[in-house]
């Protein structure tokens, strides 16, 4: 797996840029990752990102968009506003988690 430098530190990523070691992530890195895709994180963004991190820690899988809405209580409409076009992938990217399943 390639190593790249984000936020002045080395992190392990896959060929699409998703972190492969969720433990390398902290909120400062999340801010830097968001900047990479042109998003400045506000409170609403953080609510979603923290849900992703917590849910991944307890379930071992990146939550799908539907799960963020149903279990995380954030309306789908808002997720598209906060992370335009591809919210599921963008949230996972910012949260330093693998891309969610759902596509097989």
């Amino acid at each position, binding site marked *: 797996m390639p190593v790249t430098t984000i936020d002045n530190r080395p992190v392990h990523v896959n060929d699409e840029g998703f972190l492969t070691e969720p433990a390398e992530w902290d909120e400062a890195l999340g801010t830097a990752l968001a900047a990479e895709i042109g998003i400045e994180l506000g409170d609403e963004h953080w609510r979603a990102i923290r849900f992703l991190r917590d849910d991944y820690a307890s379930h071992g899988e990146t939550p799908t968009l539907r799960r963020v809405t149903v279990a995380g209580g954030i309306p789908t409409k808002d997720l598209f506003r906060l992370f335009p076009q591809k919210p599921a992938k963008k949230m996972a990217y910012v949260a330093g988690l693998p891309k969610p399943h*759902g*596509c*097989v």
Partner: protein
Amino acid sequence: MRRLLVLGAGTAGTMVVNKLRRRLRADEWEITVVDRDDAHPYQPGYLFLPFGATAPEDLVRARHAFIPDGVELVLADVDRIDADENAVLLADGRRLSYDYLVIATGTTPRPDQTPGMLGKEWRRSVFDFYTFDGARALAAALPAFDHGRLVVHITEMPIKCPVAPLEFAFLADAWLRQRGVRDRVEIVYATPLSEAFTQPVAAQHLGAMLEERKILLEPDFMIERVDDERKSIVSWDEREILFDLLVTVPLNMGDDVIARSGLGDELNYVPVDKGTLQSKAHANVFALGDASNIPASKAGSVAHFSVEIFVDNFLDLVAGRPMTRSFDGHANCFVESGDGKGLLIDFNYDTQPLPGRYPLPVVGPLSLLKESRANHLGKLAFRWVYWNVLLPGRPLPLPALMTMAGKVAPPDRSAASAGAGATNPSTSTPQE
């Protein structure tokens, strides 16, 4: 006596009771299977119904005809599963206790989950083809459709048989051409995925096939609602696609009994270990076929291959031995492409569909990821195999686990890995 209870006498449930009845002693094990009705549909045939290419009466047989002697078939609705008490409560008040439970209740299209889908245009200009009634209604409506925009649409992944909407688009293209009206019809393929299919090499092949047929791809389309006044579908990011005829794959969900029993995820699928299909919450409960949350295609081939692994493991488990076999997510699917041709894809959790030959290297006779007449004939022949070999649990000479023999890996070996449902990196980076 020990009791094995199976919920659902569909593809997975029927195979399981047939295989296990032969391998569990009749004086030690009672096997019961529950289903709500006695009609077993051949679901792959639904795809052909709208085009008049198959007769409705060929697609349904009695479930009980496939249940072996020594297995009790109970026809009843299930109220709920009480996994803590090892019992299933039926809607008529009966209570079935078990030592082991297999949940094989499948997945169902749920048009009620998308606002407007069941509105006044439902089965007038809005159709699904994943149900017997839906496919027949579409068969009645299609002959009158000779101009305008046909939108083939997927609501959300995962869906049963993820290649079927592509097949529908290919068959519709060929059918309209044969009727001489293809020039007057625009076909749009709207999908929540970023490309035609989920995995890079197959997405490339199948995407090119859409292009060749002048079928327009609308990627990353996550539907919010159907507007039945304007006859359009509207996405969460406010894109609108107008249609004259909408053929949609509604949201797929596991059975409501899973939700009522507190055993499911957001889509009512049972969380299981993806190698053993054992429930993460209850060691004596397994979920097979489409009912589980494994990251594999919801398809009969996955049910078939995983049942073989499950049966071996189950015999170990009930004998007090550790389960040693692990399912790899193996799927293979015929993909109809129109004009009497088809493709075949063969893949698993870690290896995406690749070109090559199947089941034997070089000689095939089937070609992977390539259109051929043999693949189409294979798909047609499969109906016989399904009723006569697969459901009765007779051995099919195909290995349960996927093999790389006969497959051509892409030059970049790392690209062979499908990983977590990877899509083509060039089109799926979140930066876009």
